[in-house]
């Protein structure tokens, strides 16, 4: 894990520095006043490079970054002049809450849906759900989110059903009767819906496929033959085996939870990780880019590890003891 992580950070570090653009370049061609503008602007830029430590060779900069990381110092954002850790904490809380709820909901709906479709294969309901889910899957989130903003946001004569920005009310119009969590739930309804439906659509297909794989196997026929009730056959014998691929997918979603969605966050003006990373990349705010991408990398690695552990619990055929033996 450590070497992989090392590799990822080296590549990210190199890539972002190889990208054109320079955080010290005078912004928007602004070289200020003065008689020798171009020359002076260059001087100022050199001074800024030195101040930010960007005058040193890239490997040295990388090592400095690693040394700081070892003491849990993620550096300071170039533009905001605030510790990166602080910025991440602010954004991560929002992103995590949204994504955990969205993924939980997606699983809650997708798994039973998939099982039902698999056990009632080619029934009318299976066909309908297949079509609906494929349509959902192919609808771009930005479009759905925009439609939601137009038709549910209260502008232009449409009903004002849901708030269309942020995760809480602005100061003067805070609803005194609405508790903080209710306020949050109301504000995050649209973002969560937009985050949930594409995941839900793909997950339910995976869960259907996983179940179909299992239900036609011999041990299911045996279970039925020995007179077990259909519920026991499906939920105890088939589902536990059929859901294994779904668990692996959960692991791949772990990094998504921390990296957030730049589209949804921008549309609903949410201070989240996706937005933080996107703005940092656009501004070449290296410390923020490095911190967020490393965090995603760590979460990916942990996700893989976690899914391996989960197998042990779900799949009776895999266990640590056997490996040792």
């Amino acid at each position, binding site marked *: 894990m450590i070497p992989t992580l090392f590799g990822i950070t080296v590549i990210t570090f190199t890539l972002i520095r190889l*990208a*054109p*653009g*320079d955080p*010290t*370049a*005078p*912004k*928007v*061609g*602004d*070289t*200020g*006043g*003065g*008689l*020798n*503008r*171009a*020359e*002076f*602007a260059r001087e*100022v*830029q050199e*001074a*800024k490079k*030195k*101040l*930010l430590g960007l005058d040193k060779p890239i490997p040295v900069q990388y090592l400095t970054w690693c040394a700081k990381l070892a003491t849990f110092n993620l550096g*300071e954002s170039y*533009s*905001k*002049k*605030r510790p990166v850790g602080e910025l991440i904490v*602010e954004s991560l809380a929002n992103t995590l809450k949204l994504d955990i709820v969205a993924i939980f909901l997606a699983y809650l709906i997708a798994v039973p849906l998939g099982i039902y479709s698999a056990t009632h294969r080619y029934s009318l309901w299976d066909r309908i759900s297949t079509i609906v889910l494929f349509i959902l899957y192919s609808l771009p989130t930005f479009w759905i989110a925009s439609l939601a*903003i*137009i038709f549910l*946001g*209260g*502008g*232009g*004569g449409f009903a*004002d059903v849901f708030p*269309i*920005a942020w995760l*809480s009310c*602005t*100061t*003067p*119009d805070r609803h005194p009767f609405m508790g903080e969590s209710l306020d949050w739930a109301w504000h995050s309804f649209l973002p969560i819906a937009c985050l949930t439906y594409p995941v839900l659509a793909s997950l339910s297909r995976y869960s259907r496929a996983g179940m179909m794989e299992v239900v036609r196997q011999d041990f299911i026929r045996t279970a039925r033959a020995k007179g077990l009730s259909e519920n026991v056959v499906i939920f105890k014998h088939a589902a536990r085996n059929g859901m294994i691929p779904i668990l692996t997918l959960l692991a791949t979603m772990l990094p998504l939870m921390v990296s957030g969605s730049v589209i949804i*966050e*921008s*549309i*609903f*003006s949410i*201070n989240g990780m996706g*937005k933080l990373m996107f*703005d940092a990349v*656009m501004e*070449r705010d290296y410390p923020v880019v490095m911190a967020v991408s490393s965090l995603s990398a760590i979460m990916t690695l942990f996700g893989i590890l976690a899914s391996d552990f989960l197998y042990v619990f779900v799949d009776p055929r895999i266990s640590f003891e056997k490996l040792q033996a």
Partner: protein
Amino acid sequence: MKHATWWVRKLAVLAAAGSLLTGCDKKNSSNAGQTASTGGAVDEASITYDKLGRDRDTFVRYLPANPDNLNPIIQRDNYSTVVINYVFDPLYDYDPKDNFLLKPLLASAMPTISEDKKSFTIPIRKDAKWHDGHPVTAHDVVFGYEMVVHPKVDSAQKKSYYADVEYFKAIDDYTVEIRMKKAYAFYSNILNMNATVPKHLFEGVSPEDFNNFKYPAGHKLAGTAYSINPLGFGAYSVERFEPQKEIILVRNENYCGPKPEIRKIHFLILTDTLASRQFLKRGDLDSFNYNVTRQYDMEDKNDAYINRNFNLTLYYKSVYFYVGWNMQREMFKDKRVRLALAKLCDVDGFIKQVELGYATRCIGPYSKEFSQADLTIKPIAFDPKGAYALLEEAGWKDTDGDGIRDKGGQKFEFQFMMPSKNPRGEALSTLLQEELKKAGIRMTIRALEWNAFSEEIHNQKFDALFSGWASTDPDDDAYQIFHSSQSKERGSNYVSYANPKVDELLDAARLEFDREKRNALCKEINRLIYDDQPYCFVMHPQVVSVLHKRFKGGRPSPLLGYDPRAGYDFKIVGRER
């Protein structure tokens, strides 16, 4: 000068910089018959203004991105500038009512300029107070300067404005002397800059810690970053700033200048244009700038809610867009070719079809709103025949019959570079490409992400480019963009324009302290540059904006738009004092 394309990229920089005015001045509208509800008495009963229970005296506007840093020394993004302008005052401000001449703001009188034109002695107001009650003194002004120029302070953008300053000195508690290294007539932006910070707050703080200063223990804002809640002395102070969400400014009741009418300014940070427009349509915003004029012209113009509650204002900002020709390329060295290309660029058609009439022709490097531009210049008309003749005359003929003009074995083909996701650039380039094809010139189009685009133009790796400039100063020095010395070292004259006569005039203007005479020189420069066509000057876009009817916006400034600060005639209807 700033790149205006950045403005386009960020969707709405200047939009946020705010700007509009009540529909009272119809003369501002060049779009006859397109004016929405203008003028007339306000029917109090018919307008909706406090849907969310907000105070009537609160002005609600939006910012399309989060302001990054409200410390006036460190800040470098436009949205921060918008907010900082309310919380801090520069020494002098441009007077929108008096031809944009400087007028004292923190200073109490105009500067005394020494015989050698290098020293400015500036008296400071004795009644100015920081929001915490401490008096603002000359020492604060000097301290601000010291922070800007300190190498450990990350103030690159401000530093470049002080390139020719030798020192700032406090002569006594209320007098500052600014000494320049050389005499320089375009000094106004030095005096107009917000760079005064409270010395008493930063006592004993090292320059490194100045960058990320947090209020110390014991202070009522202990632990809060100065960049989020700066202590200032302007007409407003920060009451609340929740990053990526909202900023609330409240009027400074101890402000030494004339008190603004608006008690609170509430900025909503809305990163999505569609969402911000929905906020407008449901009555949660008091002002809105249409970045896509089509949205106004095709949709909101006929929206009953908007017509009932908002007044339309059309005005110009000091921004222009251009196509630059890289004169290191052989084909663009010939003035006749550049003129021919200008004749092939159907700007009037572009303004009519793409901008829907919300723009005017640009006739040179100076903003039409200020007195430097020569308004007698006639824009070059769309004239393909004249262009063909010029191209023939310059020796560009199709000798091998392949439909492309050539000269000395070289074909007339070039690449047109522009920033990506720029609807204006896309429309213009397609239009031009089509016209050039008919003329026997092959033009390819390349769109680049902003950082990459900026890198390429400063390395002069382009043939032609589409971009824009925004002036921040009514007394603009075109030296940066058109003096031949600025074509090296990544300077802003990346098209490598060189005309000894223009160089001479640019040099002369910088030493001419008489505004009238200087403006005459600028007009001369304007004529010469338009004649040389280093750029195909395209257009000044019009700002299409609406303001809630309960406000009267006064005259919008081409620099700031309209502004609720005192001195801009921004009033609450029915409550004028």
